[in-house]
Every structure is written in C-alpha cells, then in structure tokens.
C-alpha cells in the first residue's frame, strides 16, 4: 500500500464529470472510515444517488426513499463494495478461457461465422451492448461507445434505459381488464407486447422485513457485529475465531 489513492477504487469519482448520464456528483468517503461507537449529527439529504448507483439495484424502478429504520442500517461504502464483490463471486462460473477448445473443433470457416466463433466477448459485454442499443433506440443516450472501461462499469450498474417496462406492475388496477376471461382480441394484444430487456425482467426488491444476518463462522444468527470490520458473529466463541482472520486482514 504505497499510494493509498491508486489502490482506492473511489478516487476515480471526479472523472465521472465526463459522463453526461450522471446528473449529480458527490464525493464519496475515500480513506478508511472505521465505524466508531457513539453518534454524530449528519445532514439528512434523503436519497443518496451516488450510493444507490453502487448498490446492486433492481434496475427496473427508481429506488424509493428508505424508511428511517432501514436508513440506520445503511452500509458503509466499503461494506457495499465488499457486498457487490461477494455477490459477483457467488454468481461466478467456470467461464475462464483457461480451458482450451480441443484442436479438432477449432474454427476453420471464414466470414461471419468465424467472427462469431472467435469472439472474445463475454456476457457482461453483450449485456452492456444490449443496454446501449436500447438506450439509443429510446433516443435519450448517444450510440454505444466501444470501450472496455465503459462496458465494465455498465455491467455493474444496469439501471439505465428500460423502456417498455412492465405495464401491470403493482396491483394491476385500472388497466381495464375483465373479471372473467379475455376475448381473443385481448389475448392477441397481450401476446404481441415485445419482450422486456434483461434488466427490466429482474425480480423486484424484497419487502419491508428487516434483513436477516448470519454468523460468518458457524451460520447461526449474526447477533453481534465485529467493531473492526462489521462482520457478524453469533457469540464469543465464533468471535475469537473471527478475530484471528480479522487481525490478519487489518494488521
């Protein structure tokens, strides 16, 4: 850790001024801000867009204001980043290119097929391209920029450009449907609606119920929190085991 700025993922925040899609720029906490016991007055500005942009959002609808109780549970930037990384790891799969395709089945043909076969694009690239295409169709955003950096970013925050969102979300009241069955015409109209985009089809946010936490060591309820790193443990015994790791991490 010679230069803390170069290793901090948030030091690049000021460069976002070049991105026209980011309406509000806010400085994120940079260096380590350990959560300390006690309290402090903070300015309540309601919804924090820079924070929601980092969170693994549902992408379909704008996040509503968090209730007061949940706001106190808001994660620190570092915890949020760690959570995003963990979710990404849990969804990871053996898509690495370290396993070579046997020579017998290597691409030999030419033309368009060869382009597809030898494509190095992964899922995140295709998703970014698709979102850029939809945004361009909607006329709001400039055509896709073919740069690796942008692709990676939009792979994380997939909340942009979801036209043609679900019509009947919510209770479905007021869409003028019949109580009994549908006419053939209505069914036809229903089936003719085009598919949603990948992000728009994602499940909605969980309900109001408080999130459950678990002991990181044994998997029982996480009844206590480590003051150093915020990890949850169930009791003294697991805390002792956790401390071994925790000291190693933050020594």
């Amino acid at each position, binding site marked *: 850790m010679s230069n803390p700025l170069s290793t901090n993922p948030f030091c690049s925040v000021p460069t976002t001024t070049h991105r026209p899609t980011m309406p509000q720029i806010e400085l994120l906490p940079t260096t380590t801000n350990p959560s300390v016991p006690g309290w402090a007055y903070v300015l309540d500005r309601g919804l924090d867009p820079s924070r929601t942009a980092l969170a*693994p959002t*549902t992408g379909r609808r704008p996040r509503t204001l968090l209730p007061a109780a949940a706001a106190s549970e808001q994660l620190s930037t570092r915890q949020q980043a760690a*959570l995003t990384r963990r*979710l990404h790891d*849990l*969804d*990871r*799969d*053996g*898509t*690495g*290119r*370290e*396993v070579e*395709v046997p020579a017998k*089945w290597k*691409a030999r*043909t030419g*033309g*368009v*097929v060869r382009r*597809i*076969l030898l*494509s190095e694009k*992964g*899922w995140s690239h*295709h*998703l970014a*391209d*698709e979102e850029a*295409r939809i945004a361009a169709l909607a006329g709001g955003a400039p055509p896709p920029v073919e740069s690796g950096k942008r692709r990676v970013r939009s792979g994380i925050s997939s909340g942009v450009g979801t036209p043609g969102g679900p*019509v*009947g*979300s*919510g209770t*479905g009241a007021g869409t003028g*449907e*019949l*109580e009994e069955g549908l006419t053939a015409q209505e*069914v036809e109209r*229903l*089936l003719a*609606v*085009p*598919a*949603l*985009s990948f992000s728009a*089809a*994602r*499940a*909605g*946010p*969980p309900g109001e119920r408080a*999130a*459950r936490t*678990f002991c990181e*060591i044994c*998997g029982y309820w996480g009844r206590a929190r480590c003051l150093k790193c915020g990890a949850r443990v169930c*009791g003294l*015994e697991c805390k002792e085991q956790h401390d071994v790791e925790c000291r190693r991490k933050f020594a």
Partner: protein
Amino acid sequence: MAPRSAKAASTAGVKNQTLVIDNGAFTIKAGVVASSPTIEDCKVIPNCIAKDSVKKVWVGSQLDQCKDFGEMAFRRPVEKGYLVNWEAERAIWGHSFLAENAVAKCDPHETNLLLTEAPNCPQALQTNTDQIIFEEFEYASYCRTLAPTLNAYNDIPSLFGGPSSGDSSQGPAECLLVVDSGYSHTTVTPLINGHPVQQAIRRLDIGGKFLTNYLKEQLSIRAFYAMDETWIVNEIKEATSFVSDNFSRDLERTWKGGKTDRRSMDPSLLVDYVLPDFESTFRGVVRPYDHTTPKMNSRAPVTSASRDKIVTLGNERFAAPELLFNPSDVGMKEAGLPAVIIESVNALPLGLRPSMFANTIVVGGNALIPGFLERLRREVRELTPSEYDVRIASPEDPIRSTWLGGARLAAQHQNLANILVTRKEYLEHGASWLLRRFATHGP
C-alpha cells in the same frame, strides 16, 4: 453466398426427423424425434469443456467416463443462461451431434432443429445463434423458442390429479405458469396457449450455481478449502440439501450453543458426508450422523485411525436452498421466489390470474431439492387472495420436462411446420428478418 450453400438450400425444407435441444447452462437435454417420443429418447449431456488436475480435456458427454473430478476446471459456453461462447458450444455440439460416436447423431441437412433459449435474451446473441445454426451447422430448418413455452405441450392435467390424456397430439395447455429454476437463474413465465406473455416474465438471479458457490464458501470457512472443488461441492449439495419448512426452528436445532451453554444438535438434521479420495473412492457417500468419527470441521486434529475425510453438514444443508426464498440473506436486493411469482402474475390482466395460480408447474434441477415444492406452495398460498386456488406441481422429471414438451411438439408435424423456418427462407430474407419472425411467431 458460397455456391455450396446455395445448392444445399434448394433441397432444404421441413424434414421428417427433428433434433430437439434444450440448451441449458449446466446440461444439454437433446434427442432426435421422429414420432411418439418418450423421455428415454432424451440424452443429458454436460454442457461444458472440462480440464482435470492432470490437464486432460473432456468435452461434453466424455465426462461420463471421467472418474477423477478433483480440482476440475470447467468452461461453460452458456453464461447466465444465455449462449455466449459459440467456439466452445460448437465443440460440444459437434461432439454430441456430429462426431462418429455421437450420442444423438443426425445429419443436419436432413434434420429440423428445435432449440431453446432463456427469456429476455439480448438480440445480438439471438442473431449469433441463428447465423451459426444455418451457416455453420446448416440445419435444414430451425426454430428458436423460449425454453419454458415447451412445457405447455406436456400432459399438464395429469400433474394436477386430472385424467391423463395419454395422447401426445393434444394442443398446448391453455393457461400455464412455468417456474424454471435452473443452473443460472430462476424464471417465471406465464403462458397462454403455449405463447409467453413477454412483459410478465420475471427473473430471480439465483440458480443452482449460486447455491453451489454459496455452499463452497460456507464449507471453506468451516471444513476444508473447497473453492476449487466445484464438482465435489455440487455433489454434496445434490446429495444432502433440503428446503426447510421452518428455517429459524431448524437453525436453532443445528446450533452448537454458546461458549457457556452448550447445546446438543438435533441428530436428525445432521448428516456426515464422506468425501471421495479419487484413489479408491470416486463418489462421495452420505452417512447418518455419527459423533464418534473424527470430522474435518471439528477443531480437534484428525487422528490417523480413520483415513476417510468426513464432513458433518448441519445448517449448510438448508441455508443454501433458503436463498431461493430469501435472496436478501446474502444481501441481494431481489425478492424471494414466491414474491417473484406474485409479481409476474400481477403483471397480467385480472381475468387471467386465477388460472395461472391454479396451473403452476416447477421445472429445472432445483425442483428436485426435497421440500422445495411444499415450501413454495405454502408461501404462495400465504401471498395470494384466499378465493384463488393455488396449485403448484412438478413433473416427474423436472430436468427433462422442457425437452419432452418440445419432443411432443416436434412429433406434431403440422404444428411444427408452421413454426419452422427453412434454410432457404433464411438465405432469402436474412438474419434480421429471422430475428423479427422468432420474436413474433413463437410456437
């Protein structure tokens, strides 16, 4: 266009045999269908290229002969449920459908292809698939369809205790809600007469892969370093996991207790798993819990008396499948599967909702987890108005159910001809025409 292709196109048309491929991320379900298909015609082929610890490469069905899965690395052409890498997929398909000793060998020029895809697929990937099918493999005709839709052609009434028609030529089910819980994700698709209601399709980003990775993480903390042992951990998951009908009760029962108040865990919830050593044993074995044998996840050093590597599984058995019902347990900001089902149905007109709740089926590998259906039934029941009838069932073989539906459709030659696009048509109209056609003319 090359003259060779043009010549092939002139003789192309709808053929008598159809290759039905349900191209999943974990396994390909495939088989050649002529008439009256049965589930035995379906071959389950691992959809991966794997490299074992001695750098030997295994393609698709070759893995059935493999014994040593220690530190096996996998490359999967289907990512997040979508066919992304055609270089690897072509090798697996070639090995499964074209090679000399292929498991479902057939000549593409004499075969129709019915291929499935996951819902909400990016258009670029769809076009890639279309082009590869017609320009690389040169199938005579082809139809690409959403995987869940094919389930409508199965014998749905018999799943709900109704009379089995036994007739494979019947049309699709009128109203059907298909919950497809596979390797990459879980999708909820409402179908009307076998057509998907696109704007009501919802996806929960948790599938079997996520559960395996979660278990891998848990075991690495508590028992042994499992991060490189995807295959072994997947075996453990399939052999031992279950969906708890009362999560907090079971969590209490499997708690070791605090430092000063030890508790005895409920032995009925614990199992021992004997890991394979890949020398004399190649498969793990589940054993009833025995507190006398030394365990890898106990703090005490393993004595040399027993050379078996044994892991005791307690809350690990049900904590992973619990994620399907509570994704927020790992901090994922998505609702659980029961709420996703409600969300999907609520996107439909009011008149259709009762028949969707009354005709819900669960397919995909996760449907095999014990307790899954019961828990889903209970929670959906709690979330729906009491006047609605909630019926959720799962076919006998939820993994091959989609394929079987596709095979039954393929056996109805007239219906099949309506949805297939011949290679000649493709060469005449081009790829973007095909894209539009499959988007509007599903089966």
